[in-house]
């Protein structure tokens, strides 16, 4: 039953997308804008179809309908409800289904938001682009990534999700957040295509899509930070970012998206960088597809990667089409895209944004290169090599310093041209804050030039951001915290906290392994005391068995454990983390072969880690504040403004033209 309804819904979604595409093409070719009204019906149909498909899958998962192959392979009776719901995005087919749902959500909102302008060719082309992408994802589900396949002999129970994904609540939130980000970049991409095709490559499409981009970017940021947190809490190795191919795949569109969010301001202000901005928007979207290809096709091995499937060639083909279409369109519109303006001085806000873009592009290039290099080398001479931490750390550190430096300078730089006097005036306090940060870090025991320089630059950048917020709130009250610039400064403060946390937690991490032989054994390490209290076994209702080791850390009880998942035949570590704003103490139980009493514990003491999550939260808050409309409103052309009525009661809705 589930299979039947689910597959019917997916088919309906695919058919609806094709109908919508055909209708828009007809409307554009025959110059009958009226046809666009019926596209609303198609979008409604697709929305219904995707909701039904997801509801059916969730219902199959919750009812443990093992006649559905996806449920039989990934579901299990006894899995807590939250993880059963999350099983939807725990494997390939379901994650494509979630992707489609979110994509259709964006499609529906765009169609509704622009319902009064559906006859505008640019909107028509944008909707067409989104429908093509939607059709592609529904096609994936009809073909190689079909979530609704029936099983002839349903098993009595399934194996359940990968235990690693069941060990932490973040699993329930991290993928949907990430997908809201990834998929959201479809909207600016669609409008970029619309602008290119209609030739309206001015600033109009940017203003339409700016918010969407920031919205998607905010969720992507949030999703990445949640992923790092998950990694930190679950794996218990004292790290949060491993340059894993899937992490890189999510980081790549973040980098180009961040570059775009900055360079778009140059275009709005000065009408420049049109080709560059269009390329960035298209590259960001293309990278989300490339990332999905790299990580979902089995070409690159990764802990995140799902099992191999046939969707690889399709995704690669789709990626190639996107690149070919955008490169072709940008080439075709080359003349119209040539900008007239020029930048007066490199020492100006726009000069800093330009440098920022070069650095972000280089950053993205380094990450992409490191991710695909093993593939390239194997293709060239057949050698199997690996690229990991040492490469990425060494290459990205200087880039990080340059970005921090730019983040310190740009907010105090005026547009057009900065005089030495203005600069010295505005930079004095931030610079003093930076020097103070360096001296304080040294007094608190900081060592090594790299972290101390990071703290210094962070101080200057923080000073520059606070200065902007201070001036804005003095002038506008609480409105000094909202709007793009001020919200952006709060995002900067979040990034600065993250930079400080990176530097502190990497440079001053301390790790040691202790074996506790008897109850009462006490060890001292990195300013903390650890006392072994005993062991305890805990059986959870879902069947997992926690072998807990009770350790008192500075007087409070912690329970790191080895968790056995009998249904999956795997044992995982469940570390305990106890932290403060100063440092985190993480305990992991090291499995030993000996049966006798006692335990081996790996202790990781990491300063300032907590600021990573605080910084992430601040970035999310800043993004939300940046989305609140600031004081500047979109100007209404006088000729299209409504006639002002003397009596406010009279200007009731019936005068408002629809």
């Amino acid at each position, binding site marked *: 039953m589930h299979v039947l309804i689910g597959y019917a819904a997916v088919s309906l979604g695919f058919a609806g997308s094709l109908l919508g595409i055909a209708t828009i093409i007809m409307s554009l070719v025959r110059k009958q804008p009226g046809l666009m009204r019926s596209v609303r019906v198609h979008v409604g149909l697709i929305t219904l179809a995707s909701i039904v498909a997801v509801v059916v899958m969730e219902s199959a998962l919750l009812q443990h309908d093992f006649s559905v192959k996806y449920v039989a392979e990934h579901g299990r009776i006894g899995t807590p409800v939250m993880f059963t719901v999350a099983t939807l995005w725990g494997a390939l087919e379901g994650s494509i289904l979630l992707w489609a749902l979110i994509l259709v959500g964006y499609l529906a909102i765009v169609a509704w938001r622009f319902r009064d302008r559906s006859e505008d060719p640019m909107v028509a082309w944008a909707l067409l682009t989104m429908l093509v992408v939607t059709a592609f994802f529904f096609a994936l589900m009809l073909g190689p990534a079909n979530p609704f396949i029936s099983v002839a002999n349903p098993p009595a129970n399934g194996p359940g999700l990968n235990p690693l994904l069941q060990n932490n609540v973040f699993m329930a939130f991290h993928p949907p957040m990430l997908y809201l980000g990834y998929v959201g970049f479809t909207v600016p991409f669609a409008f970029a295509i619309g602008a290119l095709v209609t030739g309206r490559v001015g600033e109009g499409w940017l203003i339409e899509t700016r918010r969407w981009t920031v919205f998607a970017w905010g969720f992507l940021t949030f999703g990445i930070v949640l992923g790092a947190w998950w*990694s930190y809490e679950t*794996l218990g*190795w*004292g*790290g949060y970012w*491993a340059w*894993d191919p899937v992490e890189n795949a999510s980081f790549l569109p973040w980098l180009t998206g961040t570059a775009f969010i900055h360079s778009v301001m140059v275009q709005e202000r000065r009408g420049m960088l049109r080709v560059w901005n269009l390329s960035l928007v298209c590259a960001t979207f293309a990278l989300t597809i490339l990332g999905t290809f790299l990580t979902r096709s089995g070409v690159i*091995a990764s*802990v*995140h*990667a799902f099992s191999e499937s046939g969707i690889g060639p399709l995704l690669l083909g789709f990626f190639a089409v996107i690149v070919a279409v955008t490169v072709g369109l940008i080439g075709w519109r080359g003349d119209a895209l040539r900008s007239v303006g*020029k*930048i*007066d*001085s*490199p020492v100006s806000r726009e*000069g800093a944004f*330009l*440098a920022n873009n*070069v650095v972000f*592009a*280089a950053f993205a*290039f380094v990450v992409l290169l*490191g991710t695909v*290099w093993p593939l390239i*080398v194997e293709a*060239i001479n057949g*050698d*199997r*090599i*690996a*690229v*990991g*931490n*040492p*490469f990425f750390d060494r290459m990205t550190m200087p880039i990080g310093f340059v970005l921090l430096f730019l983040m310190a300078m740009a907010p105090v730089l005026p547009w057009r041209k900065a005089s030495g006097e203005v600069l010295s005036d505005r930079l*004095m306090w931030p*610079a003093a804050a930076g*020097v103070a940060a*360096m001296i304080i870090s*040294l007094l608190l*025991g900081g*060592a*090594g*030039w790299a972290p*101390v320089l990071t703290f*210094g630059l962070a101080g200057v950048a923080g000073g520059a951001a606070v200065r902007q917020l201070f001036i804005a709130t003095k002038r506008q009250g609480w409105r000094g915290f909202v709007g793009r610039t001020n919200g952006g400064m709060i995002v900067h403060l979040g990034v600065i906290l993250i930079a400080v946390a990176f530097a502190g937690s990497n440079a*001053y*991490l*301390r*790790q*040691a*392994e202790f074996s506790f032989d008897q109850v009462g054994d006490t060890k001292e390490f990195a300013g903390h005391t650890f006392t072994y209290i005993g062991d305890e076994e805990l059986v959870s209702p879902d069947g997992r068995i926690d072998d807990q080791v009770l350790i008192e850390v500075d007087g409070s009880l912690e329970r790191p454990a080895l968790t056995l998942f009998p249904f999956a035949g795997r044992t*995982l*570590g469940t570390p305990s983390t106890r932290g403060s704003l100063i440092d985190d103490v993480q305990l992991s139980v*090291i*499995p030993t072969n000996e049966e006798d009493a006692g335990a081996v514990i*790996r202790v990781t003491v990491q300063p300032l880690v907590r600021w990573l999550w605080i910084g992430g939260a601040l970035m999310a808050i800043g993004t939300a504040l940046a989305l609140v409309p600031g004081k500047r409103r979109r100007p209404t052309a006088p*000729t*299209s403004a409504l006639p002002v009525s003397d009596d406010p009661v009279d200007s009731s809705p019936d005068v408002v033209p629809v």
Partner: protein
Amino acid sequence: MFSKRSIIWLGLLAAALSTLVISTQVDGPPRTNEDRVRALSQDFACPTCDGQSVAESNAVVAQEIRRDIRRQVDEGQTDAEITDALVSAYDESIDLRPRSGGVVGLIWIVPVVVMVFGFAALASVFRRWRDTAVQTASDDDVELVESLRRERAGDGSS
């Protein structure tokens, strides 16, 4: 003669530089052997687990390699010696640090070239912008813009 302002700036600069110099001389917390083991184990891929380093993974092989590194660190071997030992015991694909020679080594050079090229392009663009003479509108241009504006205003559409 220095202004008050430039004296403050010089002071800040001197303070920043001396702090940096001091920071290179200060000894951090003592590094335990485990600190070294952890740093090293991040540089090696766990052979059986997809894309995880030895540091992250809790697979049996990863634990074995960690123990191996631990033993060699305790014996006082250098990082290079440990790397050589592990690569010969397993495979080159275990080393997450790409070699610096041959095709593989290009990965260290290409990004630097790209970055140098990027900044050179940026510099040349700025130079071109600077060298473009400031263009002043001729009377004809002004008249053209004015007539277009009148036309637009009379048109009634925005």
